[in-house]
């Protein structure tokens, strides 16, 4: 019998080795594949919400944009946005139904504590039996600039109006403010009540004002005359000077067609039978910039737009450029300018594109980047939204340094552009942005975008002109008046003015 007993023992050991093999397969070799099965989503969700997700802070390191609180529900932690609507375009939301957006999405590896930089911290959490803590994100947002921008924009908007503002530090690319109106409250979307989440989501999506759209970075609009910043840069880069003279008719006949380009108001530009680049820019003369566009040709114009970070599209299509040309921490639609091939056999389109119409598209972030390159001696900094990540002990585990995107224009061109933009605010279309004691540089825009719709009012500016500290780009959608180019300035420029005043008056 002993022989059988030994064999039985061996057989049982063999059976258990089968079990060990199967368990090892389940828990190690096939573990990732099985654990990531979509049907296992609930377990992943519970695990995700067991992490004490890191906070998102303003540049001051104290103002809280997003924070985790203990929840009373089934999930352990709950996301809170103390000033939700104001920072919604920056933080995004953190929803158990609709996922993550904004910094909650792009910085998730840090916020959730999964990034390798936080391994020491999370490992000690595990060993000491503490809840896993994510990293804290410090942003570049200046709460005062953000609040001022929000208030100034809201004041200029008509009932139900929409618009957006981006304020940058031209030397670092730091995003001081990013405002889009209307906005939404990320709190109900980030709640743990699926019914509330869905009803809020439906409400936000069905709202004709489209509050979930971040108009500062996420959509594109015709830039109108603010595109003359690019056309003028191209002219200067290609040999023109502020004094270069151009014929000054009251309208420009477009080749191959019976169409014409007219100046706003219909008259000719100041200066007689010829006028200069400086005068044409100061008064935003469409006729002259149409001429300049035709003289430059599509290659030079497109190359200059590209250098500022506009994306090339041919055929012009908003669905191209899924990745922004200039990298950014939240989804950013780069401006659009057609490929040169697009203009073959379409000479008039060159002239119209040179004044920011046809298929030109931009948003406040793109235009702020253009302004920032001029304010920073021709060096365009990539926009920076996050400066550092800290672990739960306040130790900085990751820094994001300022980064140069490119050098779209020479320092000389940048200086000339600054001079022309100062002239716009001193005596041109942008006088509404004048601030006593501070030299402001700016460019207005009034962009038509369809029959019977009020044009978009734009303003791109920086100050102080001699040592720029802040760049502000504003768009008031459907907020201008077709009658006068200056209305763009009247509507959008005062917003920029208030922001610049608040920033330079308060901090710098």
């Amino acid at each position, binding site marked *: 019998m002993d022989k059988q*007993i030994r064999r039985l023992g061996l057989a049982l050991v063999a*059976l258990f080795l089968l*079990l060990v093999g199967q*368990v090892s397969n389940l*828990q190690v070799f096939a573990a990732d*594949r099985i654990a990531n099965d979509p049907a296992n989503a609930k377990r992943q969700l519970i695990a995700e919400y067991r992490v004490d997700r890191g906070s998102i802070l303003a540049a001051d390191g104290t103002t809280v944009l997003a924070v985790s609180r203990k929840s009373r529900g089934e999930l352990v932690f709950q996301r809170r946005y103390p000033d939700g609507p104001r920072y919604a375009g920056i933080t995004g939301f953190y929803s158990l139904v609709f996922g993550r957006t904004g910094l909650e999405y792009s910085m998730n590896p840090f916020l959730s504590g999964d990034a390798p930089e936080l391994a020491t911290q999370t490992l000690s959490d595990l060993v000491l039996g503490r809840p896993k803590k994510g990293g804290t994100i410090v942003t570049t947002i200046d709460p005062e600039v953000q609040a001022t921008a929000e208030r100034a924009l809201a004041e200029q908007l008509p009932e139900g109006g929409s618009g957006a503002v981006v304020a940058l530090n031209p030397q670092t690319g730091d995003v001081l403010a990013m405002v889009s109106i209307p906005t939404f409250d990320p709190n109900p979307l980030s709640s743990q009540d699926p019914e509330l989440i869905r009803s809020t989501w439906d409400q936000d999506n069905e709202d004709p004002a489209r509050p979930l759209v971040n108009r500062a970075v996420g959509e594109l609009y015709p830039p109108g005359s603010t595109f003359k910043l690019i056309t003028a840069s191209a002219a200067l880069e290609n040999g023109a000077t502020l004094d270069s003279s151009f014929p000054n008719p009251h309208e420009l006949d477009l080749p191959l067609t019976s169409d014409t380009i007219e100046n706003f108001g219909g008259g000719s530009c100041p200066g007689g039978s010829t006028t200069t680049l400086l005068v044409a820019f100061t008064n935003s003369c469409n006729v002259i910039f149409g001429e300049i566009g035709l003289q430059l040709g599509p290659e030079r114009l497109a190359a200059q737009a590209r250098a500022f970070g506009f994306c090339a599209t041919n055929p012009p299509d908003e669905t191209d450029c899924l990745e922004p040309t200039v990298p950014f921490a939240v989804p950013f639609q780069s401006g659009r300018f057609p490929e040169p091939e697009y203009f073959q056999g379409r000479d008039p389109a060159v002239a119209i594109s040179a004044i920011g119409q046809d298929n030109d598209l931009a948003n406040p972030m793109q235009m702020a980047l253009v302004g920032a390159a001029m304010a920073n001696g021709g060096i365009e900094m990539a926009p920076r939204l996050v400066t550092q990540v800290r672990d739960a002990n306040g130790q900085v585990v990751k820094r994001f340094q300022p980064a140069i995107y490119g050098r779209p224009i020479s320092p000389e061109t940048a200086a000339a552009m600054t001079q022309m933009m100062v002239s716009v605010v001193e005596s041109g279309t942008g006088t509404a942005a004048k601030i006593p004691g501070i030299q402001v540089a700016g460019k207005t825009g009034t962009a038509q975008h369809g029959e019977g719709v009020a044009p978009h009012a734009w303003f791109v500016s920086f100050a102080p002109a001699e040592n720029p500290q802040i760049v502000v780009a504003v768009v008031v959608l459907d907020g201008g008046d077709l009658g006068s180019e200056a209305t763009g300035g009247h509507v959008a420029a005062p917003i920029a003015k208030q922001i610049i005043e608040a920033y330079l008056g308060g901090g710098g």
Partner: protein
Amino acid sequence: MSVVTAGRLRSRTGLAMLLVAIAAGLGAYVIAGLGLRGKVPANIGIYGPLIAGGFLAAWLVQRKVAPNADPALLPIAGMLAGIGFAVIFRLDAGLKPEDKLAQEQVTWLLVGLAAFVLTLVLVRDDRRLDAFTYTIGLGGLVLLLLPVVPGLGATINGAQLWVRIGTISFQPSEFGKVLVVVFLASYLSNKRELLAQGVGRFGLPRVKDLGPLLLAWGASLAVLFLEKDLGASLLYFAIFVVMIWIATGRPSYLVLGLVLFAVGAYLGYLAFSHVQLRVDYWLHALDPQHVFDQGYGQIAQGQFAMASGGLVGTGLGRGSPTLIPYAATDFIFAAIGEELGLLGTAALLTLYLGLIGRGMRTALQRTDAFGKLLAAGLTASIALQTFVIVGGVTRLIPLTGVTLPFVSYGGSSLVANFVILALLVRASSGPWERARRG
């Protein structure tokens, strides 16, 4: 003199191992509380002394009435039961009223230890059981078939293996299993020469000697047909075949047993939709169109739990094992896999291997056929049951619901396993062939 010294040494080693086991179980309980709530469980002051006291009392009695017994058996069972209790407490935390399962499990653990002590005290020499072959056999059969008695039986989760008297329900088959093993050890040790007489080239048993084998096959089929308890019927038959093979030394019994098993399994598959379903659950547990369905979903959740646990697990109280249906009973192995990882499950399997090793050693040390068959049969019953449930939970084989010995929640199972443990301890305390102990 040397025997006494050896006995003392054994008992001291046993005590040290038992203390480690108790510490591990209660430590796991405290860690589970910390993981769940961030604080030490409030009832540690009650459960701690009860569990530690219960095991120490059992150890004292064992030292007194079975001084030469294998010292490792009680600590191994203690460690398994301690981990089981901690995990049951953890699984209970999401339920209302809180702590109900843990409280019941402690109660049953103490009842189990009492049964352990009682068995050791009553059965001073296991060979005396050999005198009651047919009484025990009949008792086992009655217990097996009790759930089929009208008015007594209750169907839970599709299987009619429960008996309900008033508010108390229990699974008599758990105790029936013990009696069946004792009966078989007794019956086979008496009839082994007879059964071993084969005829023909292949040493096939004579037709009239096949009686018991066919009877056991019929009984397990009856359990399957009448009680719809696939797991138990499979287990009984396997234990029977293994024991008759050990007793006779004839491989033909193994072959025949396998053939009968195959026929029985095929008949069961044809006759019962629930057997067909079990196979389908097993094959298609993770299919997207089934993964949330009943049956499939349970196996899928077990797979997800173990895969999510990975190598080291989430830590006790930090996973989501409550998502698994029947996590405290059939699927407790998957819950352990999620929170303690492969390290935990491998440790658990190692503990069972330890138990199997000690049991087999006892069988080898015994000089009498009855003792050998008893020890081997009891060990095989624990080992096979563990294989059936762990294999089912891990999707190695189709799932049949049996408990994980000493670990799963459930009074009948826990008490019955402690009776098995007591019989193993008793079997290990002698009589041996002295020379073999070296």
